[in-house]
């Protein structure tokens, strides 16, 4: 062992502090934030200015739904929909209602998706933004219903529908009702599509399970953020079934891109501009002379 190694080891140890539950919650309000990828400290203010992308390693950190509204849509153009829908406990799972209430308080959302109407460079769109801070972004009845209603609104107004996905999949606690939300959102998207309207799906970290296997994968345009985890089955499940080591980049946006599942990977800083441009290309009625 060289002297250098000893140094490295000690350095690592310095970072191995385990924050208490309270300390974890303190971090966003704090002055500094640690990048979960490269473990470098960043000023929170700088990070927000940088779209929550780590200035050192370019890691795209998780965003709340409202943070996305701020960076993606025209200022003050967003009006939310269906915030009054309330999750119930259809299978009477112990402590489910309490968990929903706690997450609602934590995020300020009624469920794991925020939906509404907004403008993108003056262009009217319907939008749904999933928030993985709320029950891992999992989809139960209310998430399915909110997305469906947002799609229906887009169909009614004849405008594009854009979704930012971030979800662990279907929500276990609502059983088969959660599964059926995959079908519900799909029938609504089908109708939207039949009206010749544009649907853009933007997959963010993480998009897996039932969400990846329904609306997230069937955009007219599928876009992902760099390095986002996207997949159908969990990595551990697959490792157990195939009994082989999976490639490092397995189920990342880049992996999907290489396998033909995405139209583009777009950096968060350029997302607004590029998506706005795609919308423009679909709504402009001018005919070339």
């Amino acid at each position, binding site marked *: 062992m060289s002297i250098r190694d000893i140094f490295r080891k000690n350095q690592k140890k310095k970072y191995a502090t385990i924050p208490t539950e309270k300390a974890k919650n303190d971090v966003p309000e704090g002055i500094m934030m640690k990048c979960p990828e490269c473990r470098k400290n960043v000023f929170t203010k700088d990070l927000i200015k940088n779209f929550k992308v780590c200035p050192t390693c370019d890691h795209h950190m998780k965003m709340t739904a409202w943070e996305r509204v701020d960076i993606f849509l025209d200022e003050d153009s967003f009006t939310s929909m269906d915030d*009054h*829908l*309330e*999750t*119930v406990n*259809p*299978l009477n*799972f112990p402590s489910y209602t309490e968990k929903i209430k706690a997450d609602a308080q934590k995020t300020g959302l009624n469920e794991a998706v925020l939906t509404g109407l907004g403008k993108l460079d003056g262009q009217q769109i319907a939008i749904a933004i999933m928030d993985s801070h709320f029950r891992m972004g999992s989809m139960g*009845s*209310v998430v*399915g*219903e909110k997305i*469906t209603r947002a799609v229906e609104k887009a169909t009614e107004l004849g405008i594009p529908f854009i979704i930012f996905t971030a979800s662990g999949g*279907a929500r*276990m*606690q*609502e*059983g*088969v*009702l*959660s*599964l*059926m*939300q*995959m*079908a*519900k959102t*799909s*029938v*609504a*998207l*089908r*109708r939207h*599509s*039949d009206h010749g309207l544009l649907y853009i799906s933007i997959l963010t970290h993480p998009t897996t*399970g*039932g969400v*990846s*296997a*329904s*609306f*997230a*994968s*069937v955009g007219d345009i599928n876009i992902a953020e760099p390095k986002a985890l*996207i*997949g*159908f*089955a*969990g990595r551990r*499940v*697959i490792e157990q*079934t*195939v009994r*082989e080591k*999976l490639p490092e980049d*397995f*189920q990342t946006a880049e992996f999907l891109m290489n*396998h*033909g*599942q995405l139209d583009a990977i777009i950096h968060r800083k350029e997302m607004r501009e590029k998506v706005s441009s795609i919308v423009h290309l679909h709504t402009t009625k001018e005919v070339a002379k």
Partner: protein
Amino acid sequence: MIKVLPFEEPIVQLKTKIEELKEYTANAEVDMSLEITNLEARLKKLESEIYENMEPWDRVQVARHPSRPTTRDYIQLLCTEFIELHGDRLYGDDAAIIGGIALFEGKPITIIGHQRGADTKENIKRNFGMPHPEGYRKALRLMKQAEKFKRPIICMIDTKGAYPGKAAEERGQSEAIARNLVEMAGLKVPVISIVIGEGGSGGALALGVANHIHMLENSTYSVISPEGAASILWKDASLAKQAAEAMKITAPDLKGMGIIDTVITEVHGGAHKNIEAQAIYMKETLIASLEELEKLTPEELIENRYSKFKNIGEFNE
């Protein structure tokens, strides 16, 4: 020898006893026919007690019974002139899903379903009825073909789920399932789905965006297997029995929640006890279902599917 499930052991024990007594009466001097009659009456009572009060976990076991009839068995009993069609025209032919054209009650239909193997060797070939993306894409190709030729579509659901493997992810398992959901929503012909065994999550739903959804009495339809649910919710897969109850996954549960249209009665003890009789029950349901749907125009069929799924979900407004 057909596998005996734990909950039906009392019946088997009693049956064995009756057989013993019968043999004894035939070979010895003693006449036990009175006892036999009594026991046979008791057996009948016991059978209806056990088979008519099955717990969710009992149904899970029947749904997974190795001798449970598969898609192919029902096709053979329900249809004539079945011609199997292969391949997705993109990558390969997935043996975990079979499909083709056949005559049902003299009319051409397209019939598609998950296909488990009858034994280990066939199960390996058919990947235990767990499809890869090419299976779902084959199914969709056959559905589109049915639409072109205005044939009704019957789908049989019988899978633990879509296969969770490396190759499946590489070829877009998510997209294959998602695409089926969206495309099935827009089909201009009647679509009927029947859950005949296990209906496991998205891999099942990918054949399930139908106008009518029926379930055999002892089949299940769920977002996750009872074992999976138990290990996620309680970190203990051995609590699967409790999870099977809590998750409400049986045909009567789903009927109660208004998700499915019909619970197709099973013969006592499960479809594997009398496949022919079971096929007749299924046929009756299918005839009624088709008759109802054939009255609808293509637009009405799409609208019917729309409102069916739009109405699923529980919340307060």
